[in-house]
């Protein structure tokens, strides 16, 4: 069987993106919280996933953004770089356009408010619900956090229970603790991930 040379594979991927023929570009990047799948559309960053399973996730990206999903390391370079700076403690806010297509109504309102919770601070599920004018919706806010399509950049790790307990995190509580420690200036990067 003849195998496509790597250089040819790379140049096709690049040509496809440059020709504007790709709906979603993705790649997997290493990070202190384990490998992350990063995906971008022409409009902006649309997905960050922990413990990525590209096979399943490309299906999901295709359903949400279009079937022309293609791995494209160069296309996610900017996201990769900003995340590296964040994990090295050199970046507190992300300067990345986001593509939140498909998130509307209350869910979108909560994600927009979440985006404004500053680095190193925490808020509660209930506070976000109150700010959005629906004080009884703390549980719904929890569900929205759990389904956050762009964790870390949309900082759902900064949202905790009213009694200060971490409660939950889509990427697991160890990662939530690690991100909060990183932002408080006491990073514990030796943490053991599953």
């Amino acid at each position: 069987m003849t195998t496509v040379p790597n250089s040819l594979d790379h140049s096709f991927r690049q040509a496809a993106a440059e020709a504007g023929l790709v709906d979603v570009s993705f790649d997997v990047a290493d990070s202190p919280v384990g490998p992350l799948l990063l995906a971008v559309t022409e409009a902006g960053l649309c997905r960050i996933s922990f413990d990525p399973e590209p096979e399943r996730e490309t299906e999901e990206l295709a359903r949400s953004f279009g079937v022309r999903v293609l791995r494209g390391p160069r296309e996610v370079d900017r996201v990769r770089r900003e995340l590296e700076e964040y994990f090295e403690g050199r970046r507190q806010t992300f300067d990345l356009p986001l593509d939140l297509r498909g998130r509307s109504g209350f869910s979108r309102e909560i994600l927009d408010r979440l985006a404004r919770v500053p680095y190193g601070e925490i808020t509660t599920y209930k506070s976000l619900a109150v700010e959005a004018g629906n004080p009884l919706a703390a549980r719904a806010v929890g569900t929205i956090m759990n389904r956050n399509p762009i964790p870390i950049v949309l900082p759902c790790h900064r949202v905790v229970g009213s009694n200060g307990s971490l409660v939950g995190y889509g990427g697991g509580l160890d990662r939530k603790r690690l991100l909060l420690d990183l932002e408080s200036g006491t990073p514990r990067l030796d943490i053991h991930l599953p």
Partner: protein
Amino acid sequence: MSVPPFERFYVDHRDAVFGHLVRLLGRQRAEDAFQETFLRALRGYDSLRHGRYLRAWVFTIATRVAIDEGRKRRPEIVPELDVESADGRPAYAQIEHLAEELPEKERAAVVLRYGYDLSYSDIGTALGSSEEAARQAASSGVRRLRRRLS
């Protein structure tokens, strides 16, 4: 069967398509044709209605790209693929038109065999089936066409 994400389609078929192009054009030219083949596939990909016979589909694109490449650079490279029919149109254009109504597997086999002059072994690869199954699909497609045209 739904259309898979392009990444999966590309990874599943890239080596076979490259091998096919190397056989038709030689290694050096195959590289240009490879990129053009998958760019054309990307252009049409979001209009596909189902994910059946994707290999036959991309082999057809690759073969057409190889013909274009051959014409552009050295027409003698692929003369056997460039047979003109009586009305002056290339064989593949006429066959594709005639075979439009055939069931998809037969259509792909007929077009690749009589439009592009691929061997049954290559058509088997394109359809993801055996050489013998490709031969049968082409011959039952031809029988069906004969019945329809008579």
